[in-house]
């Protein structure tokens, strides 16, 4: 689906989301009534300091204006922008700030929903889609924490060898299903039916419970240990004096 198709299917009552060189900003009417704030990264654009600061501004303005509508984060991005200038200016702070704004908004009662409809990677993924309460994806989305050629360079293993290993474990290989198995992606939507209705169902099912991704990863056999380790440390720490 193209971005326009997605926006039309998500918001049949209308939206004013604008795409300015890959930065998505706007708002939309929800089918169920009320409105949503929309941010995002489109066209497989990298996320650098200049883009991140506009996205965080939009989120903060929405929180400031009040209301209870959800915040949608649409993502088809590259990784963070890899440049001297971005690092010089403190890209880690800009990306962290964007994530903080999204997490804060969610905790203030503005449910954040990520929709991964294309690519994303590394720091850009952490600051956008992975900073939401619930992340859904469209079929064909192709997230990659690290691509296989780069991984091949670092691990000194051939790409064929990596592909072979990827069959037995989803834990390192790129791709939507592998990431979903670790618990990062809550569900994969059906692009042949109304996205608005699927969004409405999703919003109705969001609960107040905390971060459930490690439990989901255990349930799906993508992350066998994370949930239990976190829980054990949590309990030991609270018992300690």
């Amino acid at each position: 689906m193209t971005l326009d198709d997605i926006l039309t299917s998500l918001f049949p009552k209308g939206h004013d989301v604008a795409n300015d060189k890959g930065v998505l900003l706007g708002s939309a009417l929800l089918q169920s009534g009320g409105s949503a704030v929309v941010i995002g990264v489109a066209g497989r654009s990298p996320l650098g300091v200049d883009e991140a600061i506009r996205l965080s501004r939009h989120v903060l303005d929405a929180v400031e204006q009040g209301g209870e509508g959800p915040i949608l984060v649409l993502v088809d991005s590259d990784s963070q922008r890899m440049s001297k200038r971005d690092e010089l200016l403190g890209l880690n702070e800009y990306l962290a700030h964007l994530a903080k704004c999204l997490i804060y908004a969610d905790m203030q009662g503005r449910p954040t929903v990520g929709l991964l409809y294309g690519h994303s990677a590394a720091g850009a993924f952490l600051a956008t889609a992975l900073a939401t309460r619930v992340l859904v994806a469209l079929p064909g989305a192709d997230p990659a924490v690290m691509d296989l050629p780069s991984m091949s360079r670092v691990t000194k293993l051939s790409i064929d060898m990596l592909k072979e290993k990827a069959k037995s474990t989803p834990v390192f290989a790129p791709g939507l299903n592998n990431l979903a198995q670790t618990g990062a992606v809550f569900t994969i939507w059906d692009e042949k039916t109304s996205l608005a209705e699927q969004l409405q169902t999703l919003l109705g099912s969001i609960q107040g419970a905390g971060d459930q991704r490690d439990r989901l990863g255990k349930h799906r056999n993508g992350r066998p240990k994370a949930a239990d380790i976190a829980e054990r440390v949590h309990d030991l720490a609270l018992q300690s004096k």
Partner: protein
Amino acid sequence: MNISDRETATVPHLANSKTVSWYEASARQRVQLLLDAGSFHEFIGPEQREESPHLQVFDLPTQFDDGIIIGRGRIAGAPVFVAAQEGRFMGGAFGEVHGAKLTGLLRAARDTKSVPVLILFDTGGVRLQEANAGELAIAEIMRALIEARMAGVKIVGLIGGRAGCYGGGGLIAGCCSALAVSEQGRIGVSGPEVIETNRGVEEFNSRDRALVWRTMGGKHRRLLGGAEAFVDETIQSFRSFALHLIGSAPVFGAEVLKAEQTRLEQRLQRFGLCADAVDIWKAEGVADAEAVPVMAAADFNDLANKAREPRYDAR
């Protein structure tokens, strides 16, 4: 299998926090010398052998603590939670177990609503051999960290290790209440080699160490406002500043985020066209900007405090 602190177990405890270099020390030494003597109590220590379940797929050695030490201790008599990454194991990178230990600690801190957390970063970011689990672990850590701060917990990052603080580690650092960083403590998202590999040596020459230090190193981060404190190399200095920052860190909320938004917008307006760190320092009003890299810590701090008072309310 290897145990990172084999050497610390055999060296008599002559080591002193005033003389031991943070950079040279192991994660375990840093924790021991940072906290009040004998106060540290570890959670899921190496004796429990909770190793990475994924490294064997790559025929790589595991480590019994998966490269991170998590526990509780005291600093100047007050309780504190501590997490310390071992940069000498897999570059301190976040894997499934490594990350989950920190997530659990932060969730506990959140539930105490009070006990501060010290994170001793030493990391290149996500551990590639378990990239999906590591990336998601970082997302969970960021979430748990902000939840803890919302509950009133102060979280201070200490950065001065071999691996620096890169990738997702840089994002977690950016979520902390305050940071103390030494000269060697580089902070960034894309490391020098990553930029060079992806964009070419013209964009960033990773072998130009002076360029690396002045673009990502502790002095630049302090002058830019990316870290609240610049510390010299000793563990004693990190201890003093950890105490200071726990005391001065802000209570997290809308005001802090709005102040950070403004702080970061102003940075782009003021320095967005600067080509090099030296240009930024000059624009900050640093008189002898060229001399900053060779300046001793005390002299640098005098200069930095004149150029830019540290802010404690905008992170």
